[in-house]
């Protein structure tokens, strides 16, 4: 199976053939995947070098000229470093584009904290109108990338990861999917957290919702799941900062007395290298830790 990033390159290369409005902007990272696209579309595949302010600014400028830019690098250099460019060169200019990130929160643990961006989705939450897709499988990434490219002049963020679930689900770019039904509470698993959440909740009487499009937040799906439970107890497990979607769950359940537990990546730096699994355990996001935390919360 190819990785999400490899799928990004192959799907986008195909989309460049199909849609003359599409353009790809890179900053040295991910260039290898676009060699053939660059040969075929030399004016629509642009590598600006290691210049991330320019990377995002060029994306905004392409959009001002009527193109649909797809802008890619690691999340830390796409959202965090040039955040003001994301805010102004897209949002304030009132233009759209697709930002596609890799490496996310902990995909390259040996690279350390400089290459981790667990705050990316929370940062985008400070802005208006961004759609956020968090695929959990390369097939889902392909589906969501196609939707993002075709989404008119919408502002779309697609968060790719090396952490994946074993099997793809039929994601539609909008709704949460009900993966398991129960009555003792609702657990929302975001993207690549699903397999660990399913393992952690094995045998528990809980509904598991699968979220790959987290903004806009599917409030109706959460309300509907909560309506089928004996208590409005909600756990959200996200592969970025813990609690990022808690406010959205609270807003969705405004009319119902409810409890929400937000699980995800802590703000504290681990200052550890090592492997992805070790970081998941270090953040309490492995199946065993999740089971402890989820059952502890639902039992209260």
């Amino acid at each position, binding site marked *: 199976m190819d990785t999400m990033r490899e799928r990004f390159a192959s799907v986008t290369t195909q989309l460049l053939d199909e849609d003359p409005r599409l353009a790809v902007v890179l900053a040295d990272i991910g260039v290898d995947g676009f060699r053939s696209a660059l040969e075929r579309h030399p004016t629509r595949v642009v590598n600006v070098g290691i210049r991330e302010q320019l990377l995002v600014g*060029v994306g905004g400028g392409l959009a001002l000229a009527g193109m649909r830019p797809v802008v890619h690098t690691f999340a830390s250099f796409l959202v965090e470093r040039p955040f003001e460019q994301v805010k102004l060169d897209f949002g304030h200019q009132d233009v759209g584009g697709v930002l596609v990130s890799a490496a996310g929160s902990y995909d390259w643990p040996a690279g350390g904290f400089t290459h981790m961006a667990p705050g990316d989705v929370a940062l985008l939450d400070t802005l208006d109108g961004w759609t956020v897709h968090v695929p959990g499988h390369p097939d889902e990434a392909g589906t969501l990338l196609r939707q993002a490219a075709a989404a008119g002049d919408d502002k779309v963020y697609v968060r790719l990861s090396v952490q994946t679930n074993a099997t793809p689900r039929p994601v539609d770019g909008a709704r949460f999917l009900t993966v398991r039904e129960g009555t003792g509470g609702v657990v929302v698993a975001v993207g690549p957290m699903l397999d660990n959440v399913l393992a952690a909740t094995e045998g528990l009487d809980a509904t598991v919702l699968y979220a790959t499009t987290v903004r806009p937040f599917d409030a109706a799906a959460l309300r509907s799941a909560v309506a089928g439970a004996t208590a409005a107890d909600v756990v959200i497990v996200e592969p970025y900062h813990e609690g990022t979607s808690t406010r959205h769950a609270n807003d969705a359940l405004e009319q119902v007395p409810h409890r929400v537990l937000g699980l995800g990546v802590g703000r504290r730096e681990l200052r550890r290298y090592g492997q992805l699994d070790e970081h998941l355990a270090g953040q309490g996001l492995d199946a065993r830790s999740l089971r402890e935390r989820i059952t502890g919360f639902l039992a209260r």
Partner: protein
Amino acid sequence: MTSTPLNGTTAHDTGFGELPHLMSLMTGDEKHGPAATSTLDALWVLYDRVLRVSPATAEDPARDRFLLSKGHGPMAYYAVLAAKGFFPTAWLPGFGSYDSPLGHHPDRVLVPGAEIGSGSLGHGLPLAVGTALGLRAQDCTDPAVWVLIGDAELDEGSNHEAIAYAGAAGLSRLHTLVVDNTSSSHGWRGGIASRFEAAGWSAVTVDGRDHEALYAAFTAPHPGRPHVVVARVEAKEYSGEPKPKAAAA
């Protein structure tokens, strides 16, 4: 001097000599110091004689683009846009008020003819690079893309990312106008033009009050390379009145 036809907003063509009055509608003063007018001459020559854009073609994909990156002190810009009929001069007195589309930094969503919203320094040149790339990608190679930055704005590192890349990419439809009123805290040893030339740009430095020199610099050929015009005007610290200019006939 000829002007493009106005959009029915005034009964006669507006010339350079009337710009101070239009600015006074925003500032309340008939006279303006050099800082307020640092961009005025260059903007006028661009809009009057160089840019192929008018209220009638403001949405035309093949129009020339002018991006005001240095969004501070936009009175001169608004005066020129109003003089050229992009919006009614009746908007000018509302400058900065809650119900006015004319803020102390321009917003492209609110101001007809404004290609970008600006205010935070260092965004215009990267946006102009992207615009030039986007036009090229659509085989729309005729329109010129212009961006105005200030010499102090050049402090922002994002400009240097854009300057280096645009030179290397040979973006020949890209033009930068640097209005230099010596306001950069640490200056530019060796000159502003040298930064661009080292990156492969064509560069000309002129008196930013001399309309003929500006016009010649704006229209100088620069095959295969982006072009910068450094327009030098009085230092921002200058405390006297601006040198009187003969009103354009």
